[in-house]
């Protein structure tokens, strides 16, 4: 008896209520004639574009070939990934001399070693690992540029490709955080001179596009420096990119300081802790924690902005790709090249954003555990 009534109920309920997914589809995609038309049109468009892309890139695509002509012989209407597979090394190392490429590889491996203690909180010997992290920029700089302790010098003009992106990105990211913290502190300082300098600096940098700063780095600085000084262009670019990122970082960190409850400052003061000790032990650990999303956001922005150096004649992967296009062998493969470079940036940035999300979740979980 009970069975039949239950059965009846089920029959009476419209299908849209019985299966939630069906209900959702009905309500959102087919509720009115116009809605239905739009839905069908979109589906057709997705199918058309998606299928054409897959067809072009994968089904008809040619993975290995040593020129565009060779590609076309195999598959006249497909993508020619030869430009990537054949010239992958030039995307990575750019014009860095062949015989010294091991130095780039070693720097990259050491970068992973240097990052490990930062990302992996429970790593054994983490303290010692962090010492290496701090020393890493100098070691990498020496490895890449050479000229000291018997390592052949490599002209920094040859820094290009992904390795250039990494050099600028890693330098900017690792320096902009401490400089940003210092600027934020200066801006909050009770000393007017310090505060004014910080405000002027931050507002100036934030009010000027990065490209302008890069032009200043490449052209204007030469006027200010005594004639004859050959101040490395890469270093000038690194300085400008770092300053640019630092100004944004400073504002992110300052926001974190403002979000810290006033009671934390008062408790630290009442205990007699000095300003620097409070900063180190109480304020910064909490402020950095609060600011993680903003910090990672700045990192991603900076990383992507490194492509702008193309404008002052440095060859990042995009620049390398464009120079490849002017090679008769590969001319006309712009789509493949841009897609590949886009994918490269996407993977790096997506990784950073995922990591930040993971960190936030972890801290949230910890906080939640603390509250129970």
């Amino acid at each position: 008896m009970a069975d039949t009534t239950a059965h009846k109920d089920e029959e009476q309920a419209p299908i849209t209520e019985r299966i939630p997914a069906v209900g959702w589809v009905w309500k959102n995609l087919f509720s009115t004639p116009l809605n239905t038309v739009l839905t069908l049109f979109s589906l057709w468009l997705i199918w058309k574009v998606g299928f054409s892309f897959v067809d072009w890139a994968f089904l008809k695509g040619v993975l290995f070939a040593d020129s565009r002509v060779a590609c076309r012989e195999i598959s006249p209407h497909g993508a020619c990934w030869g430009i990537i597979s054949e010239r992958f090394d030039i995307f990575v190392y750019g014009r860095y001399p062949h015989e010294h490429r091991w130095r780039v590889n070693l720097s990259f491996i050491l970068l992973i070693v240097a990052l490990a203690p930062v990302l992996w909180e429970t790593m054994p010997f983490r303290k010692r690992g962090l010492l290496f992290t701090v020393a890493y920029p100098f070691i990498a700089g020496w490895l890449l540029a050479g000229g000291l302790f018997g390592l052949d010098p490599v002209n920094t003009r040859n820094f290009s490709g992904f390795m250039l992106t990494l050099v600028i990105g890693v330098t900017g990211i690792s320096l902009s955080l401490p400089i940003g913290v210092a600027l934020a502190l200066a801006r909050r300082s009770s000393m007017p001179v310090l505060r004014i300098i910080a405000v002027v600096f931050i507002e100036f940098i934030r009010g000027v596009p990065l490209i302008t700063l890069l032009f200043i780095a490449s052209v204007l600085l030469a006027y200010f420096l005594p004639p004859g000084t050959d101040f490395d262009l890469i270093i000038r670019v690194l300085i400008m990119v770092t300053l640019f990122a630092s100004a944004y970082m400073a504002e992110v960190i300052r926001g974190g300081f403002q979000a810290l409850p006033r009671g934390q400052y008062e408790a630290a003061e009442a205990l007699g802790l000095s300003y620097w000790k409070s900063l180190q032990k109480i304020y910064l650990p909490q402020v950095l924690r609060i600011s993680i999303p903003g910090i990672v956001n700045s990192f991603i922005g900076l990383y992507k902005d490194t492509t702008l150096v193309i404008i002052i004649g440095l060859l990042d992967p995009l620049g390398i790709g464009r120079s490849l296009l002017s090679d008769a062998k590969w001319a006309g493969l712009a789509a493949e090249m841009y897609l590949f470079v886009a994918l490269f940036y996407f993977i790096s940035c997506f990784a950073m954003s995922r990591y930040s999300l993971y960190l936030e979740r972890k801290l949230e979980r910890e906080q939640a555990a603390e509250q129970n």
Partner: protein
Amino acid sequence: MNTEMQGDSIIRLVNVNKWYGKFHVLRNINLDVKRSERIVICGPSGSGKSTMIRCINRLEEHQQGDIIVDGTTLTDDVKKIGEIRREVGMVFQQFNLFPHLTVLENCTLAPIWVRKTPLKEAEEAAMKYLERVKIPEQANKYPGQLSGGQQQRVAIARSLCMNPRIMLFDEPTSALDPEMISEVLDVMVELAESGDMTILCVTHEMGFARKVAHRVIFMDAGEIVEENNPEDFFNNPQADRTKLFLKQILQH
């Protein structure tokens, strides 16, 4: 000036005035606290009670008059402020524990970095005080894992770890759920009765005042209106404002 008093008074406020912008928040405050004296301060909201005790450890600056703590006159001198803060512990209404540090780390931080106590010694002392406030078993938890009453007791232990001679309490129980008030008050009574600590406590817990205070001070509109021993203060208030205030709080 009363020179006989000077010898055994540990805190002296002489004609202290303070303004927030145009708002005159402390008016001609004169207060002499003797060593080991226990004072309860009460008064309506906004009367300047917090402001007054926060001037004593320079969380707030006064603009006129002198504040002398343990023989040191408070000025802008950062070193002197540091010296005074080492001797003056403070417990806040909102506990203000450091949420990213464990209970034990909360308690050892200042002894280690301000008093330069070795870690081990600092931890032993901290455990002693945590036992005294009856929560040694929570030492390795984070503040967020504790109840309000427990957090406030940790805050008291954290202050005591600096071995202060003076303790300031700013409404230590008014952010607590009713059932937790007594556990904190018990700890405070025990602290008051066991030692020679000088205590200034802003509170409306009249039972606590009767039990431990030597003197009750009533503030209104930035002034000290009346002060007396607890017995006379509660049974025989003089000023009309005091009578009104007592009537209001005793109604609850």
